[in-house]
């Protein structure tokens, strides 16, 4: 919403975006303007001045307004467009509504960045709530690859024009009110509110709730939360959390499970939560500097790109790099290759732990389900598929879903005993072990994710089989 002050809007060419009076030249603003937005064809932007951003307003009320230094309570919201949206277009549609022009603006809109009236330690403006269009599912030039991105519908009111962007909101770190883990929690909250109807909180509120589990550090300015404070924050929302140590899952495998079956455990975890459920996964990273002690950093895994289930890269919302930033790996994502390794300051980035905030009725943890999945499906398949004439690309995937999404999927597919299966009541949350290849769905084993144990499937679904 805009304040009562007169709101000026001038359309600028994108080359001016990094000027000090607009986004300012920070690592993140340069990533957004020079790397992220150009593939979407960004050409211009305009500033909505005196914009009231709820997240910043709460931080202002609880923190900045009580500082001696004078801070503004209004922000600036910078909107980006592809194509040739001109100042005349904006003036014309605000003067007299024109359906054709509205369509043009709607199609050209790429989203916005809120610029806060506060500065970081290097005296650069801090970027607040950022909602920008994300990558498509199809990957240009790679017909066999697909992207699965975490996103949600964001409705944007621009001087009365209703616009929409499907994306996971992002913001950068504002160290006064919260460090990386606070920002990661904030990013996850946007999607959690969408999935579980949990309330949203500003950075200050997240830090306040987290530190009711105390640490030896100052509360504000926040030097950074630990794992237990992150868990404490999600507890305050009525959510539970799955803590996953991938190294431990890889090394403590069951007797009959060969090493190669568990080497891609991190990919299995990411697909398990993001493939269907689009659940943000918080990743704790260990970053080794060239000199000095290891540092710890928290980011949100916000998507992945795969070819027939094999993850090629993951996308992260990293408050020090930017939104949907790319990560590759040469060791199944135990070590990450990303922007932290640009330059000579850091030598390695490794994945430490994963934290998954969950609705408490999802009682069956990944770990419980994973061992059953390994023994009963993933490892067994390697043994059996050669002699059963099954497609060589066939593989099992384990993923979480809910009954609404799953029944809709079944409705759209040919399955055996379709009416009976669709009419049967299912638990609200489900773990699915699905056998599929590049072009064939074989079957699903469906587990009740609201149960405490995963000893036997609740149901199984066979695709493309003739009706009895």
């Amino acid at each position, binding site marked *: 919403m805009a304040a009562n002050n007169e709101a000026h809007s001038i359309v600028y060419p994108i080359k001016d975006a990094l000027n000090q009076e607009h986004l300012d030249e920070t690592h993140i603003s340069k990533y957004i303007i020079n790397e992220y937005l150009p593939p979407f064809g960004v050409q211009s932007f305009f500033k909505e001045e005196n914009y009231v951003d709820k997240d910043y307003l709460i931080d202002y009320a609880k923190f900045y307004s009580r500082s001696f230094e004078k801070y503004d309570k209004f922000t600036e919201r910078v909107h980006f467009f592809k194509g040739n949206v001109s100042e005349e277009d904006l003036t014309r549609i605000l003067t007299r509504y024109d359906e054709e022009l509205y369509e043009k603006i709607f199609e050209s809109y790429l989203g916005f960045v809120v610029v806060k009236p506060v500065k970081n330690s290097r005296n650069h403006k801090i970027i607040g709530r950022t909602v920008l269009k994300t990558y498509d599912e199809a990957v240009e030039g790679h017909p066999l690859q697909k992207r699965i991105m975490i996103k949600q519908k964001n409705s944007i009111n621009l001087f009365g024009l209703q616009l929409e962007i499907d994306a996971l909101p992002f913001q950068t770190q504002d160290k006064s009110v919260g460090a990386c883990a606070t920002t990661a929690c904030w990013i996850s909250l946007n999607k959690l509110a969408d999935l579980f109807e949990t309330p949203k909180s500003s950075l200050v509120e997240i830090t306040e709730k987290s530190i009711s589990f105390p640490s030896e*550090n100052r509360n504000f300015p926040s030097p*950074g939360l630990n794992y237990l404070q992150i868990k404490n924050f999600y507890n305050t929302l009525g959510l539970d959390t799955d*803590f996953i140590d991938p190294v*431990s899952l890889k090394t*403590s*495998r069951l007797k009959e499970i060969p090493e190669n079956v568990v080497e891609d455990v991190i990919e299995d975890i990411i697909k398990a939560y993001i493939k269907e459920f689009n659940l943000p996964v918080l990743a704790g990273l260990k970053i080794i500097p060239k000199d000095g002690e290891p*540092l*710890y950093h928290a980011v949100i895994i916000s998507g992945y790109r795969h070819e027939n289930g094999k993850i090629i890269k993951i996308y992260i919302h990293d408050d020090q790099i930017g939104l949907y930033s790319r990560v590759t790996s040469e060791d199944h994502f135990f070590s990450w290759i990303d922007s932290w390794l640009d330059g000579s300051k850091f030598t390695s980035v490794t994945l430490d732990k994963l934290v998954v905030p969950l609705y408490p009725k999802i009682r069956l943890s990944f770990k419980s389900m994973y061992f059953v999945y390994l023994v009963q499906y993933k490892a067994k398949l390697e043994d059996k598929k050669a002699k*059963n*004439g099954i497609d060589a690309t066939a593989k099992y995937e384990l993923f979480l879903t809910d009954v609404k999404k799953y029944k809709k999927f079944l409705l759209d597919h040919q399955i055996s005993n379709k009416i009976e299966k669709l009419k049967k009541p299912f638990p609200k949350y489900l773990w699915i072990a699905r056998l599929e290849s590049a072009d064939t769905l074989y079957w699903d084993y469906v587990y009740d994710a609201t149960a405490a144990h995963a000893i036997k499937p609740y149901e199984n679904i066979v695709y493309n089989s003739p009706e009895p």
Partner: protein
Amino acid sequence: MGFDQKLYDLKNEFDAPLSDELIDEIEFIEQTSGNISVVELLRPFTI
């Protein structure tokens, strides 16, 4: 693609329930793996 006998045979292999021995092993490994130390849990994310 339709289902043939080979696929039904393959599916039967996956339909077989877990043995008691495997259930015991899974429960044991579940309890003994992935436990995170207090030191790790209290380490702050500072950057």
